[in-house]
C-alpha cells in the first residue's frame, strides 16, 4: 500500500498476518502531487518486546495533558539510523512501537508490541502518534518544514495562517472557505521547496480523510484575535523568528538546528510575513486581499 507525502512515497507492507493496514486519514494520499519523490519501504511486524540495543536517546516527549490516548515518544540514534519509539499508556491495541529509519537503505522497519489476547491489530499506515513523529523526522531529512498553520488557496494565491493552538487558525480558514477559497488544511501544513519556490501541502490527519492538496506559499500571516482588524508587515529577523515559533520542531543537534534556521530564513527572505490581528468576520478577507493589490 502506497502513501504519498510531499516528495515521498512510503510503500507499506506487513510481515505479520495479524496486522491489518486500514487507511483512514491517509486513504486519499495514493498519488504524488509532485513529479519527483523518494521512495521508502516501510514494513510492520509484531513482536513481544522491543530491542533498541545500540541506540542512544536523542530526544523525548509526551502527549499533552488530557490526551484521549496518552503516550510518550523518544527519538534514538545509531550511526545514520534514527529510531522512533512510542510507549502507549492505555491504547486498546498497542503497548509499544519502535520504528527504525535507515536513510541509506531507504527502509523503515516498524516493530509493534500488541496488547495481550488480541487476534488482529488494525492500524492506519500512519497511525498516531507514530505517523506524526515519522513525518517530522522525514520532513527534516529532506529540508522541509512542518508548521501549525491553516492554509487557503484563492485565484492562484496561497496564504498561510499560523498561530498557537486555539487562537483562530480554523476560524480564519473557515472564513476564507465561505468566501470561495480552497482549504489546504486547517491545522498542520508541510512546507517544501519545489523548483526554487516554497509550496504548502496538507498531510494525513488522524481523525478525518482529506484529498491531498498543494498551493504556492505567497503570504504568511501570524494571526491573533483582536477587537479590530490590523495587518502589519514584519521585516527581518523578527519576522523570521516569530514565524519559526509556530513550527513543529524537534531538533537534537547543532547541524539539524542550523539546517532548520537556514530554511526558515530562506522562507522569510522570499515570502512576506504579516502580523495579523483579526475579528472573525469576512471583512478580514477584503483587508488581506487588498495587500497584494
Amino acid at each position: 500500500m502506497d502513501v504519498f507525502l510531499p516528495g515521498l512515497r512510503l510503500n507499506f507492507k506487513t510481515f505479520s498476518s495479524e496486522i491489518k493496514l486500514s487507511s483512514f486519514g491517509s486513504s486519499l494520499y495514493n498519488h504524488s502531487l509532485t513529479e519527483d519523490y523518494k521512495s521508502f519501504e516501510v514494513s510492520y511486524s509484531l513482536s513481544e518486546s522491543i530491542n533498541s540495543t545500540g541506540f542512544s536517546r536523542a530526544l523525548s516527549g509526551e502527549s499533552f495533558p488530557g490526551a484521549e490516548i496518552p503516550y510518550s515518544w523518544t527519538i534514538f540514534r545509531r550511526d545514520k539510523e534514527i529510531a522512533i519509539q512510542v510507549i502507549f499508556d492505555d491504547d486498546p491495541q498497542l503497548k509499544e512501537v519502535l520504528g527504525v529509519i535507515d536513510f541509506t537503505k531507504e527502509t523503515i522497519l516498524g516493530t509493534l508490541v500488541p496488547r495481550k489476547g488480541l487476534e488482529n491489530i488494525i492500524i492506519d499506515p500512519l497511525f498516531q502518534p507514530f505517523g506524526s513523529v515519522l513525518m517530522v523526522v522525514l520532513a527534516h531529512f529532506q529540508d522541509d518544514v512542518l508548521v501549525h498553520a491553516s492554509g487557503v488557496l484563492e485565484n492562484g494565491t496561497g496564504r498561510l495562517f499560523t498561530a498557537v493552538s486555539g487562537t483562530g487558525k480554523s476560524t480564519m480558514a473557515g472564513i476564507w472557505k465561505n468566501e470561495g477559497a480552497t482549504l489546504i488544511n486547517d491545522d498542520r501544513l508541510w512546507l517544501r521547496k519545489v523548483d526554487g519556490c516554497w509550496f504548502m501541502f496538507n498531510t494525513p490527519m488522524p481523525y478525518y480523510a482529506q484529498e491531498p492538496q498543494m498551493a504556492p506559499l505567497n503570504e504568511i500571516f501570524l494571526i491573533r484575535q483582536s477587537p479590530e482588524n490590523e495587518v502589519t508587515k514584519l521585516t527581518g529577523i523578527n519576522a523570521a523568528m516569530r514565524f519559526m515559533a509556530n513550527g513543529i520542531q524537534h531538533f537534537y543537534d547543532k547541524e539539524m538546528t542550523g539546517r532548520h534556521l537556514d530554511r526558515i530564513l530562506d522562507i522569510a527572505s522570499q515570502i512576506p510575513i504579516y502580523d495579523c490581528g483579526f475579528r472573525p468576520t469576512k471583512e478580514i478577507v477584503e483587508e488581506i486581499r487588498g495587500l497584494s493589490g
Partner: protein
Amino acid sequence: MNAEQFVTRQMGSEMVMVPLTDKVADMTSVLTLNEVGADILKILENPKTIEEMTENLFTLYDVDKATLEADIDDFLKTAIDKKVVEIINQERF
C-alpha cells in the same frame, strides 16, 4: 563568544542565536541581535580584551568613547548573563 552552545545565523545585518541545551535546540529562548550586536559578536569570534573590543568598534561607529564604553559594558553584562559571551581571563576583564 561561546560558539559551542549556540547555532548562529545572519540575516541581512541582523543575527539570530538559538541556544542548545544538551545539544537540543531551545526554540523558546532564541536571541536576536541588531546590527550593532551582530558587529560586537563578530569581533568576539576570537577572544578579545575589552580594550581591544572598544578600539575595534571605535573605528566602526561615529561615537564618543565614553558612550561606547558604557554601551559595551551594558551589552557584555546581558551577553554574559545569557551565556553568549564567556569571561576567559578574569584579571584582564
